[in-house]
């Protein structure tokens, strides 16, 4: 009997005494945290690859998860502006409020693109700090990983060596993968593309894609029929090879333009879980490049 009690006691404590409870906003940061923390962390992902991260409801379940988090890992740069502030405020968890150690923004570790020179809602849903879709450039994961690993060591100093070792392994593997991907993606350099949402500047910047048109008339606005035919005119003068959209986006606008301009409609996973091949960070970029290359044919 005593033995059973002892086992129950152990079980109770081994589940409550595990290391960090981490709330991640997007699947790419969950995957990165998994690489860097391994079994030292219990990771929750607030959104999936099939959800528009701009438009998430501040659901009770998210608030409950944030309540128990030791660390919140998000993109930042206003991407989660429509829901995260409410989730954090309602959580009553002082450890993860913006400005505290338990709040990490990936965007703060990378150089932002498309920082607007003027802030006017007439320009659509622009973000003051720049385009927040930083995860489409694989190179960005190196500085984010270094900063995030630093944060993990700060919050859980007992496991510092383990985090350091995991970071070194990740950096090594990632650098090797980067070299491989960049080589594979060489034919994509200079290729003209159309994008559905302004969600790919980092990808284009990395692989040298040339964005000639956007299907959303302004960021965040749905494409109208009139605007789409204007895009079609643009494409007559500046032909593109393919139209890109993220897995969570409505496929109709890309299909429409793909049929009329006779170009390939390419659905990119955009983040981990965007399709069956994008199971982890490595799979995400392997699949992205494979799909882009296929769009070239």
């Amino acid at each position, binding site marked *: 009997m005593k033995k059973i009690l002892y086992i129950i006691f152990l079980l109770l404590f081994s589940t409550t005494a595990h290391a960090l409870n981490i709330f991640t906003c997007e699947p790419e940061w969950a995957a990165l945290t998994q690489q860097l923390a391994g079994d030292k962390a219990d990771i929750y992902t607030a*959104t*999936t690859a*099939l*959800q*528009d991260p*701009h*438009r*998430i*409801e*501040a*659901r*009770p*379940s998210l*608030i*409950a998860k944030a*309540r*128990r988090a030791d660390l919140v890992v998000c993109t930042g740069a206003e991407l989660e*502006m*429509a*829901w*995260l*502030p*409410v989730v954090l*405020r*309602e*959580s*009553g*968890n*002082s*450890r993860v*409020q913006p*400005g505290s150690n338990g709040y990490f923004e990936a965007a703060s570790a990378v150089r*932002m693109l498309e*920082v*607007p*020179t*003027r*802030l006017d*809602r007439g320009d*659509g*849903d622009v973000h*003051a*700090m*720049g385009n927040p879709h930083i995860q489409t450039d694989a190179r960005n994961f190196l500085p984010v990983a270094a900063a995030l690993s630093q944060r993990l060591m700060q919050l859980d100093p007992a496991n510092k060596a383990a985090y350091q070792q995991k970071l070194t392994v990740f950096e090594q593997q990632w650098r090797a993968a980067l070299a491989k991907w960049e080589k594979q993606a060489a034919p994509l350099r200079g290729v003209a593309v159309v994008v559905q949402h302004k969600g790919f500047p980092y990808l284009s910047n990395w692989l040298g894609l040339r964005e000639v048109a956007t299907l959303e008339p302004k960021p*965040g*606005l*749905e494409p109208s029929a009139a605007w789409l035919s204007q895009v079609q005119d643009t494409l007559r003068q500046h032909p593109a090879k393919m139209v890109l959209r993220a897995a*969570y986006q*409505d496929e109709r606008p890309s299909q429409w333009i793909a049929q009329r301009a006779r170009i390939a409609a390419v659905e990119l996973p955009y983040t981990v879980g965007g399709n069956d091949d994008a199971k982890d960070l490595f799979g995400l970029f392997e699949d992205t490049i494979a799909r882009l290359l296929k769009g070239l044919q």
Partner: protein
Amino acid sequence: MFKRFCSSTAIAVLLIHSIQASAADSGNAENAFNPAFSLILSGSYGNLQRDPAIPATGFAMNPNPGHEQGFNLGESEMGISANIDPQFRGAATLALDPAGGISVENAFVQTTSLGDGLNLKFGRFFSGLGYLNEQHAHAWDFTDQPLVYAVLWENQLGEDGVQLKWLAPTEMFVEIGAEAGKGRGFPGSDRSKNGSGASVLFAHIGDDIGIEQSWRAGASLHRTRRVDAVSDAVPDLPGTVGGVSNSFSGDSQTVGMDLVWKYAANGNFRNSYLKLQAEYFRRKENGDLTYDTAGTNVTDTYSVTQSGWYVQGVYQFMPRWRSGLRYDRLDPGKAAVGALNAGNVIADHAYNPSRITWMLDYSPSEFSRFRLQLAHDNSRQGLADNQIFVQYIMSLGAHGAHQY
């Protein structure tokens, strides 16, 4: 000429640079400390067949916020919020009345660093009871509140006081809260006295069902003591033309239940979603009623239980377009009237006010919305009303996150 061109180009380049710099390191600029500022502009056109001043049958002693006829500038709402220091956040919402004048809708301070799931709020705020009560008018799914909110809470219960909420550290969302306040909004009677004039208790639970569905359920209890609450133009048994003025003093206790359920394919709310919600409130009032204060002036006991509910669904069938349907119903209850007033006060109205409402709205962007609403209103016995509303809601400046 060339020189002039060069210098103006140089100035332009410099300007662009300085703008870029200020946008990029806005964290350093002094105005980065300015609070988030937002302005809601709204207005409507109402076409009614009946006088909106006529109250729902059996609810003449309740508020009747009613509707506006014709073109009408709605309340423009100005919101200001910011962190005060690492411990506190402040928020104020000022309503600009179309007729002139400003009223303070919200002005509260809340803690940001208590931790352990605790949130303390003090000042003027919308009570946390029910589901719709905390939502600002610009976030409503219809141009008006459900009948039960109109007659039992005068659309929304605002309170001057303190609110303490605690979120349990559980896997499921479990939150409890308590409020003590002045009793400013109906049914409180806003007296100047020591102690608290009204109190509220509420509890919420909620969770996800897979990735596509989420829900929240709640229960609330509101208590206050009403003193000399005067109502005018109340119909009576003798059939006095224009009604009489009554005054009520007594205890008021309201219980409520609310349920919200949301669904979106893959949990992606951008393309389409469905939101169903229902709320029920039941108020018991027990005290003394003075009949016809300007004339007969007879006081005797009076107690009544009023209740009401609504159920509504809103469906976003494609990006930018939503449609909704709502059904409202009220029960004025059978009053127990003291013997002295048995021949004066109407005890049983034998009528349940109801209304059915349909709306269609279109949002060109996240910051603008147009709405058409049609209602068939049977809230007044024998005075069915077909109502048409057209409304716009625009939001400028900072756009805060919305609650669930």
